[in-house]
């Protein structure tokens, strides 16, 4: 039985209390509370949660990345790393929403749903039991279905919400089908027990275990936006309110990777390693489809949505080579954190542009560098970081990821295909620079007569400043994050002692 004083449970208690209390406070005050009041409460709770998780990790009170435990959640650095990334995204989303939400209704519920979804994301990363994982997955998803449709009178927001909801429900059904097969084969829902059961499986039952692992990858793949499960994603990200798109692209999507990392252990170690090639192929398809489709977009939100599909492909490289190279999972986690901040910043910049100028079409971004200098600068830095231009943080995580693919190729004959993943990744990064550069050109080199707007949304400016500091700071000096990622990354090369 898990200790109620462990880090994940404290986070649940803190954020859960505030998340449930916000709508009640709103009702008690006759729904007259101001937008910034609720945002401040929710930011305070998130800051306390991230502070506590960070303190526990810094004070050395958590176990190194373990992946498996005898309980439903494990208080380890793996969960802590993802928790910090998710909570940072939730803070950026909440702060970036303040100006955007001013003209909307139901502020308390909006911030409360972000908090509840953040609990779900954090707990997905901490879970070591399939039932717990599923419940956390639902807690992460259900509030975002509502958030995607928060503009009730906007048809494209409705379309986004219904598409996202239907595909999300299908993904949940696929995941629970996988859980039922894993439980049927091993008699347990604990991931450690399932791994042990899979390793000792009768050979005639192995196809069923592979089916379960495949269903897990498909189910998580819907949220991660892997090709061929990506078709809902651009519509959902484009139609949702832009701050919510930041939460979806930078938060829930990354929780999918946390879940997949736990399941990859189950599949790759307990069964044989052949199917990691399948992951590699999906990685190449995902990054290519995402980047090629992004070039053809004329809408900034949609372009960012496709670019986040491309980034899912890069992260998947780490998962595919993780059984062969020790740095595979480190690189994946490093890029998850970086991408969370980069993409979060980019979508919050879109939110700022929509709030102030009400445009997202690329042709209307002309002269944005003069009209909204800070937002445009933040967007530029995040786009360059997404492309992997040194010395920004995106460069280092791509370096670790592609390096791990090359390592894996030389370390194991079974992974002789792995260096091609690095080649595909580098080519795709070059391709992505084309459309990122195009946005930057529109913003700075066109539209000379534009004048600066009277005031940029302050909350968006705050998020931009924070994320620029993060991207440039950890670009110049990435060591702390790399060390944390190494500490938090689970070692699951064949002899790592996962299988007893």
């Amino acid at each position, binding site marked *: 039985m898990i200790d109620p004083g462990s880090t994940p449970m404290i986070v649940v208690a803190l954020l859960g209390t505030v998340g449930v209390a916000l709508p009640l406070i709103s009702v008690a005050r006759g729904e007259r509370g101001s937008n910034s009041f609720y945002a401040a409460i929710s930011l305070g709770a998130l800051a306390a949660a991230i502070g506590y998780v960070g303190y526990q990790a810094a004070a050395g009170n958590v176990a190194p990345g373990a992946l498996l435990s005898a309980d439903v959640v494990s208080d380890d650095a793996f969960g802590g790393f993802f928790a910090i990334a998710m909570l940072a995204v939730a803070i950026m989303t909440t702060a970036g929403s303040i100006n955007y939400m001013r003209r909307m209704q139901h502020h308390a519920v909006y911030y*409360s749903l972000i908090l509840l979804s953040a609990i779900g994301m954090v*707990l997905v990363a901490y879970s070591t039991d399939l039932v717990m994982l599923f*419940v956390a997955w639902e*807690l992460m998803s259900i509030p975002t279905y509502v958030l995607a449709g*928060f503009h009730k009178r906007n048809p494209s927001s409705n379309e986004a919400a219904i598409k996202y909801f239907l595909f999300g429900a299908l993904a949940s059904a696929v995941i629970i089908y996988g859980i039922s097969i894993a439980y049927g084969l091993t008699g347990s829902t604990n991931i450690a027990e399932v791994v042990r059961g899979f390793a000792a499986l009768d050979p005639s*039952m192995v196809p069923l275990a592979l089916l379960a692992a495949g269903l897990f990858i498909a189910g998580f793949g819907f949220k991660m936006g892997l090709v061929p499960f990506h078709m809902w994603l651009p519509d959902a990200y484009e139609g949702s*309110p832009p701050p919510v798109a930041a939460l979806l692209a930078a938060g829930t999507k990354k929780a999918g990777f946390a879940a997949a990392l736990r399941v990859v252990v189950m599949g790759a170690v307990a069964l044989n390693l052949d199917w990691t090639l399948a992951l590699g192929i999906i990685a190449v398809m995902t990054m290519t489809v995402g980047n090629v489709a992004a070039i053809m977009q004329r809408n900034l939100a949609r372009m960012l949505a496709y670019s986040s599909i491309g980034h899912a492909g890069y992260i998947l490289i780490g998962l595919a080579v993780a059984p062969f190279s020790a740095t595979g999972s480190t690189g994946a986690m490093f890029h998850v954190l970086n991408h969370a901040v980069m993409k979060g910043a980019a979508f919050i910049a879109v939110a700022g542009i929509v709030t102030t100028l009400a*445009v997202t079409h690329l042709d209307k971004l002309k002269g944005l560098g003069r009209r909204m200098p800070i937002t445009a600068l933040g967007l530029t830095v995040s786009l360059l970081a997404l492309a992997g231009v040194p010395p920004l943080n995106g460069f280092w995580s791509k370096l670790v990821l592609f390096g791990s693919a090359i390592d894996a190729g030389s370390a194991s004959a079974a992974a002789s295909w792995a260096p091609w993943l690095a080649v595909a990744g580098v080519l795709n990064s070059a391709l992505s620079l084309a459309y990122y550069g195009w946005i930057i050109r529109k913003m700075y080199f066109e539209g000379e007569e534009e004048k600066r707007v009277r005031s940029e949304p302050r909350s968006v400016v705050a998020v931009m400043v924070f994320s620029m500091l993060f991207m440039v700071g950890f670009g110049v000096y990435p060591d702390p994050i790399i060390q944390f990622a190494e500490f938090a990354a689970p070692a699951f090369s064949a002899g790592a002692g996962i299988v007893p």
Partner: protein
Amino acid sequence: MADAAFVALSVLTVGSAIAALELRSMIYGSIALMGTLGGIAGFFFLLDSPFVALFQIAVYVGSIAVLILFTVMLVRRELIFKKVEDPRRRLAGIGLMLVFMVAVGAVVLDSGIKQVSAGGPPVEFTEIGEDFLTYYWPALVLMALVLAASVTGALVLARREEPDGAAAAAEIPAAAGEGPGAGEAGAEGVEHGQRAG
């Protein structure tokens, strides 16, 4: 005996699931859904889990399906759905389902599961409660939060907006969506306003 019951339940479950999707009347559709949920309860009986079976009947057939039925009767149907039929999409859906079912069926038939052993001891349902409060307790807490999130979310989505709020809300979506038509015009309007300012 068990085989005959299994086949009968399967026909009931799958048949009424298809009916629930295909019937044009939403009332009959939701009644067919009750048939599906009841059939699943029958499977739980066959699997020696009367406790789960009764829960399935009480929760799904008894309350959820009835709730859906009430909703359908209370809301005018044409307000919920506009019928858009696309025969190709329908065929693609059926094709995808067949491919998935054949693939999964082939994997199951190919595996070591060849027979079902009947007559095992019934599941002790007190253990379910015990597990929930010991091993699974964090999941129970999260389920409470899931319900809280669902209820607040559903209330916000279902709530009628006040006229002044509606005017404010209609302003941003037109801009944010940037769809064809009205959205574009709204975006233009705001942009010009900004420039003038």
